[in-house]
């Protein structure tokens, strides 16, 4: 039997030997992406993840925005923004903000490092399958890029009646957003399992 490819979006079966796998292979019926190129290297992904980790720490330590009015200054960090909701009596919203802007990105970065560092030495991390599967469930809930735009909107609204200074963390957050996008595109499930298969050879 030839190798088969089943479209996850419309269930159409393709003959793997009849399809030439190019950089992006799409389903013949519904045009869903069946295959992406698996050209990324483990080392590149690790480098980006480390970079993202540093940026993540910086964007949580330094203030995101500073707000000057009547001689007083207020500032907030990424975590502080989530706690703001908590203090305002909306704990669930606080959890939502914290989970999507702090916990999910952190889990993504640490989880990938945990899996990729052993893979580099042709070893397997413990509970590899479970950890990767969890990461894939968390991935769609990483909202750093949306947060960046939200921060922009807040800055514009505040600048109408006070002096607002974007902090270092805002820049770091922007760079983190790019790192996470690069990391996500390089660690698709197909790519990851391709690395795992290769490390067994």
């Amino acid at each position, binding site marked *: 039997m030839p190798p088969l490819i089943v479209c996850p*979006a419309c269930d159409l079966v393709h003959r793997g030997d009849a399809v030439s796998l190019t950089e992006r292979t799409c389903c013949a019926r519904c045009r869903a992406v069946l295959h992406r190129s698996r050209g990324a290297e483990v080392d590149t992904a690790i480098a980006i993840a480390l970079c993202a980790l540093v940026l993540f720490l910086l964007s949580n330590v330094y203030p995101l925005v500073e707000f000057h009015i009547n001689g007083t200054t207020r*500032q907030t960090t990424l975590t502080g*923004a989530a706690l703001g909701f908590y203090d305002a009596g909306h704990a669930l919203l606080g959890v939502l903000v914290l989970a999507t802007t702090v916990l999910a990105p952190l889990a993504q970065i640490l989880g990938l490092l945990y899996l990729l560092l052993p893979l580099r030495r042709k070893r397997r991390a413990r509970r590899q399958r479970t950890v990767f599967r969890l990461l894939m469930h968390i991935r769609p809930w990483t909202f750093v890029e949306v947060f960046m735009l939200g921060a922009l909107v807040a800055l514009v609204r505040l600048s109408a009646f006070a002096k607002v200074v974007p902090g270092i963390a805002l820049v770091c957050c922007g760079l983190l957003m790019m790192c996470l996008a690069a990391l996500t595109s390089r660690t698709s499930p197909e790519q990851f399992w391709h690395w795992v298969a290769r490390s067994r050879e």
Partner: protein
Amino acid sequence: MSTVITGRRLGLLVCLQCNCPVRALKAVHPRCPRCYAHLHMRKPHSLAVTTVLLILAAILYVPANLLPVMYTRTLLDDERDTIMSGVLVLLHSGSWPIALLVFVASIVVPLLKILALAIVLYSAWRPSAQHRQQRSDLYRLIEFIGRWSMLDIYAISLLVTLVQIQSFATIAVGWGAAAFGAVVVLTMAAARTFDERLIWDEKSG
């Protein structure tokens, strides 16, 4: 009538996590041999779960837009902002690109998501062979744009945290914001529980 060969006809399951095709009809709880994800011929109870989540989201969409999301108390006056009035404030302060951005992200996108999901769901309850590609594209669009509605929630979170200077102004969060957050989460969850293959399944199955 159909000459289309689907995974279901061949008894092939496909892992939605890693796209790996699996022949595992005899197993009671089949799992992907590669990533150990649970496998199903179709996502279990997809139609029912998605419908419930969507109805909840549609109901909450009303208070999300009518209730104030923010109360601003300054020395001069008290203001209650709904999402729409927030857009108008931005528009009057002269930053129309930002106003447009918030309008699209907070009002157009959630409404579009609810309507589009309703169309896709309706057609999955009553399968038809027409416009399948368009419906599939619509569904993929929903998945892609869904997250952007969180924008206003983040903006409010920063405003609330920063503006707590007792002598000058305070901002409090209204229940509209909670309803709005729930709409975003519910529509995202609804999109994820829907099984796109239901659009393409033939009636006879």
